[in-house]
């Protein structure tokens, strides 16, 4: 009994104080951490491949006029899997090391949108020939007009804040 307790005490005491100083000192992730996915607008060609593979279906693509395509990313429900960065043909998406994403002003802070200039083909006014990743967006579940926010169609009454 006593021998066991002694062993346990030694085991517990040996490492000494291990507590990290975070948040007063930074403790950044090592390796290829998958944090906030940043989109480089200059590289994005608006192909929509990221929207097609996103498991959380948080990327909405709208063509707002002849030359402009808008990508709205509702990163509030992003699971940081990094598939968008994997499939991007232009490497426009990078998984950064940013992980301090807490906010006190609502989930709007996690919305990222970008407008991409789409040069159209002079002859046919289309950008690509089918089938392109864009056509895949038209598959059920990936249609841009269907993207919803979590809780949007909840049948329950929320609790009101006093």
């Amino acid at each position, binding site marked *: 009994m006593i021998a066991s307790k002694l062993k346990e005490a030694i085991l517990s005491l040996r490492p000494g104080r291990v507590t990290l100083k975070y948040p007063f000192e930074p403790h950044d992730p090592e390796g290829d951490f998958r944090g906030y996915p940043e989109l480089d607008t200059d590289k*994005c060609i608006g192909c929509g491949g990221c929207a097609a593979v996103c498991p959380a279906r948080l990327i909405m693509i709208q063509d707002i006029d002849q030359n402009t395509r808008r990508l709205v990313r*509702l990163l509030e429900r992003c699971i*940081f899997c990094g598939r968008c960065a994997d499939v991007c043909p232009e490497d426009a998406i990078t998984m950064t090391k*940013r992980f301090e994403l*807490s906010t006190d002003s609502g*989930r709007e802070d996690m919305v990222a949108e970008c*407008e991409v200039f789409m040069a159209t083909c002079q002859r046919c006014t289309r950008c690509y020939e089918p089938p392109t990743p864009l056509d895949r967006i038209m598959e059920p579940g990936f249609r841009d007009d269907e993207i919803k*926010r979590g809780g949007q169609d*909840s049948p329950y009454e929320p609790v009101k804040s006093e």
Partner: protein
Amino acid sequence: MFKELCQKSFPKSLWVYHCNVGACNGCDIEVIDVLTPYYDAERFGIKLVASPRHADVLLVCGPVTRQVVPALKRLYDAVPDPKLVIAIGSCAVGGGIWFDSYNIVGGADTILPVDYYIPGCPPRPEAILHGIAVALGLAEKEIESVHLKQLPDRPESVPVEVEGS
């Protein structure tokens, strides 16, 4: 203003009731991890309590399932005022990958007024500590919404309408 009020109301230690409303356990484990030696949230007076009646803060993990909605409302009522609600993890923040499943109602703010959001899948313990630090006024939030354009001088366009926002 509300934020200042919160910080004034909770000058010292926050007692936390942790409730899982359908989470996969990833976030729950990170919440416990925050209390273990390497992160030791008790430095900030954070203490997990076993009853919502003793709590100042409700930590919500997971997407809200249909079955927990009545329970969650009662739980919220049971926490004495003033109270804070913190949503931890992508599921509690926005419904996660389950947001449109038949059995999921949505993120925590579908049912409760949420004060702080900590996204991540699961958030690192450091991210949770950062969230607590933001709540305690020790740190500032480091994120805001992003609006980028390839052609900055394009004439004014219609603002984006995200349904349900």
